[in-house]
């Protein structure tokens, strides 16, 4: 019997990438559960006090941050460290701005639909809370790839760290794309 073509037994970038995607798949199901919970508990009901303009604003901020993250990753892939740093810094700024928006939302939410007494409040704070936790971890990841120790690795052409952290940031962003209509738009 013919032996099938030899392949590389250890192809590190491909291994890392598959591992990351599987992790993102698993983590994505966390949001699937929470989104399903929203509809199971509340159907499509939504209180009138939900701040749609603010929700839209922070959605745009987060989407923009993903664009800059992408630009940063591309720059890193081409070894342009300066441009990479600039773009990732903008990403971090936009991410922080998003978090500030969530804080305002929460302050309003506690007033209009407190999580301890309304079902909408419960799902709203759970979904935005879990998502904000992901944003915080994503920001940490982005800060880590800006640390001085990482520069040497970038200059030697290894930008896996940047790729991984940016992919995770996109994932956090995509999760919000589903959360925003679920919490702010349907009714």
């Amino acid at each position, binding site marked *: *019997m013919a*032996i*099938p*073509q*030899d*392949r590389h*037994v*250890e*192809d590190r970038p*491909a*291994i890392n990438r*598959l*591992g990351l995607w*599987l*992790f993102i*798949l*698993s*983590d994505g*199901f*966390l949001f*699937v*559960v*929470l989104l399903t*919970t929203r509809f*199971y*508990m509340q159907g499509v009901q939504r209180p009138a006090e939900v701040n749609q303009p603010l929700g839209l604003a922070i959605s745009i901020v987060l989407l923009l941050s993903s664009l800059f993250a992408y630009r940063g990753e591309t720059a890193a892939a081409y070894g342009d460290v300066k441009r990479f740093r600039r773009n990732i810094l903008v990403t971090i700024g936009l991410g922080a701005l998003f978090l500030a928006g969530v804080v305002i939302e929460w302050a309003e939410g506690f007033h209009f639909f407190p*999580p*301890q*007494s*309304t*079902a909408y*409040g*419960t799902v709203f*704070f*759970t979904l935005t809370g879990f998502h904000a936790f992901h944003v915080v971890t994503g920001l940490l990841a982005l800060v*880590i790839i800006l*640390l*001085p*120790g*990482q*520069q*040497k*690795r970038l200059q030697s052409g290894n930008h896996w*760290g940047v790729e991984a952290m940016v992919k995770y940031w996109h994932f956090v962003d995509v999760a919000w794309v589903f959360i925003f209509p679920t919490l702010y738009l349907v009714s």
Partner: protein
Amino acid sequence: MSIVSLGIVRGLMSGALGAGLATGLTMLARSALGAPAWDAGQVTTIAVFVGVFFYLGGLGAFNYWLRWIAGRPDPEHASPPRPHWARYFSFDTNHKTIGVQYMVTSLLVIIIAGILQLIDRLETAQPGMQFLSTNTYNTLMSVHGISMLAAVLIGIAGMMNYVLPLMVGAKDMAFPRLNALSYWIVPPAVILLLVSLPTGGFDTGWTGYPPLSVKAPLGMQFMILAFYIVGWSSILGGVNFLTTIFKMRAPGMSLFRMPIFVWAVVATSVLQIIFTQFVGIAFLMVLLQRLLGLTYFDPNTGKVLLFQHLFWFYSHPAVYIFVLPGLGVISEVLPVFSRKPLFGYKAVAISSLGIAGGGALVWGHHMFAAGVESWLVVPFMFTTSLVAVPTGVKIFSWLATMWMGKIWLQTPMLFAISAIAVFLIGGITGVPQGIVPVDLYLTDTYWIVGHFHATLFGGFVFPAMAAIYFWFPKVTGRLMGERLGKLHWGLMTAGFLTTYMPMFWLGLNGMRRRVADYDPAMGLGPGNVVVTVGGFLIALSMLLFFINLTVSLRRGAPAPANPWGAHTLEWQVSSPPPEENFAAPPKVVGPPYGYGAPTAVHAVLSPEDDAGRKQG
């Protein structure tokens, strides 16, 4: 060397320090905010999370990543510490070390959980309350359940970790540090399960349904945290296994040349990474409702059944997570000891995926009596019956593999045969429960208890024993005692039948599960005595097993590289395997189970590996 240099000792010391600091700071913060300083739930939860992080830090689990962040070299393997045993107590990234760590932890948890239930069985042997309070009874029963499930998750991780990289011809797992991390978060979970006993316990059973679990004592919360941590171990393990299988197979190992065990790991890992999130969130919701007063399961503003849906959406597939690796072991052992190729290889390979896929669509059958929407009931009845099909494929394949084979009745084979019979009992008694009218009669009786113990004994316990007897020579380089092994097998099989067969009768006659006491007029006393006696028979057989294990470990006859004449890759290297398994990737040239044909070969080792094996 000093004891403090062991990773686990430093980890535990650091963990205790972290938990203490977190307790103090949380209490300070609470009083600064004007709340009473002590709130058992909130303070201990924060202490647990911080403590686990400190523990991992002290253990050295983050050293590799910190080195990576600092931009310093971060090799995946440190040189193994001296003396040799010390590596089992440290953050060691070799998959063989981790496999042994998992397996030993699993066996320890099984002992603890088994003893808890034996205490309960003494109580239920007779009607009336003898020596336990009802609360203690409930707690022991609940901790038994959840600990056993944790033990099974840990046990399958042990088998898969040790064997899988060897089987696919890889040096190690895809992510060795992540692998070590997945193991090392398990010990805190085990500690938390034990902590739940003195902190009030919990009386919900392992399922932890709200609203009872929202109101249960502090012990409930430790159980939730423990389960959550084990869940993450399971998810990270699944990611690691899938990546290893799809990216690190030896040249020539096409999908349909993978041993069946590898297929089983694929199915298990897919279930682990997808469904564990569901139960994790379900339990976190209970935790958030307990700690912060959110209203998921409040009958007025939330939905009580939400928990059951999420819980069973994981916990039914979880049953397949528990049994699929075991069924894979049976498929490995049978061809070797029947000296015949596995019958219907492709069908068996695909059936694992079929069980996984089908098992994902049946969760509602746990809720027939829970007041679930009536239009949901019939579809679940149908899908439940459907799962019997891929399972049947496996059973028939095993029988056909043994048919006309040259059966060699060594201990692993005996356990595999018992496993088939017991799993069949579990499967057949499960079908009636899938039928709604029958289930309404059987639900929450000992019938259910008998059924799921049969599936878990057939799908995990007996196969795990087969696996230990089968791979023990590979792991330790020593043969396991055959005579004591056969005695263990006989006693365990007899013990199983004595314990669980009467349960079906008891259940049909109205014995409720999870009760400490029952009406003497029902005439259930004698049956319950038999069950208790059977339970102690199983315990006795386990005692023989542990004696066999320790004696063989120290005095067993030296094992050759391939004592069973098996074809799969793990048997082609020395016993125990070299530190890095293979010096160069082996070449896979044929199907894994070419037994009976004298010239059949599964894989060829590189010349240096071949030389190494002949020396070893």
